């Protein structure tokens, strides 16, 4: 199995049938990567029948609001659904986004939730890293690669997935590639 579920095919303009950009790539047994997390991503994952607590890998193409508004909602939603770890990969600025939108503002509430019984790793074991064009890594038998796009003035990446000799590219936002 190697497939992509389009969770949001819209633009920044709020729309009931076209949510903000997000897509779930899945391969093999349990191999997955959520690419982007615009507004509505949690609801769209549920609408697609996906288990929120099982979403542990996220790749963000860039930090425009329509690609990340749903990210804090996913951090909280997946945590309450039982997620115990999460890896977040994106261009320069990804770690800073997590720090500002999640860690800085929600740390106090997270400690309160942990005291209430939420598992500490669900919030603390979120590893966020900024990666450059050319980055690559194997994940559950799938080769992941970050490639160049043209989306000024943002630092932005496309992601390529190669599994069992077949491949998929999700560009995120880009002007015409040359």
């Amino acid at each position, binding site marked *: *199995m*190697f*497939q*992509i*579920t*389009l*969770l*949001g*095919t*819209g*633009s920044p*303009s709020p*729309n009931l*049938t*076209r*949510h903000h*950009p997000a*897509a779930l790539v899945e391969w093999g047994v349990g191999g997955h990567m959520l690419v982007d997390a615009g507004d509505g991503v949690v609801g*769209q994952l549920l*609408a*697609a029948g996906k288990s929120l607590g099982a979403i542990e890998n996220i790749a963000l193409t860039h930090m425009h609001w329509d690609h990340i508004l749903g990210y804090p909602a996913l951090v909280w939603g997946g945590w309450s659904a039982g997620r115990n770890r999460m890896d977040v990969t994106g261009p320069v600025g990804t770690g800073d986004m997590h720090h500002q939108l999640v860690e800085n503002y929600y740390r106090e509430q997270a400690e309160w939730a942990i005291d209430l019984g939420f598992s500490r790793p669900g919030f603390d074991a979120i590893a966020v890293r900024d990666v450059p064009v050319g980055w690559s890594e194997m994940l559950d038998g799938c080769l992941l*690669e970050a*490639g*160049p796009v*043209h*989306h*000024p003035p*943002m630092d932005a990446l*496309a992601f*390529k*997935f190669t*599994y*069992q000799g*077949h*491949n*998929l*590219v*999700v*560009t*995120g*936002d*880009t*002007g*015409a*590639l*040359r």
Partner: protein
Amino acid sequence: MQFVQDVDVLVIDACAVTPGDDLAPARRKIIQRLHEFHASPQDCVDIAAAANVGKVVLTHHLPGVMPEVDASAYSGEVIIGNDLDVIDVI
């Protein structure tokens, strides 16, 4: 372009449509400027053709706009992506 050469499936930003004449001038200006950092639906199909992509999936659509493309020079499949579509790579 190298990065997408010969891929089986390309999911790509096709946001930069041609603004209709009926739009308010302010809206028209925004849509015209989108071309500086988004591809047009036709760009996406042209890229897919030039890079020998198997299947091109257009996404990042503006509300109420149906992208129009001329795919006569492309032998692969063009999919206008919709929310909750599932596309098989294998």
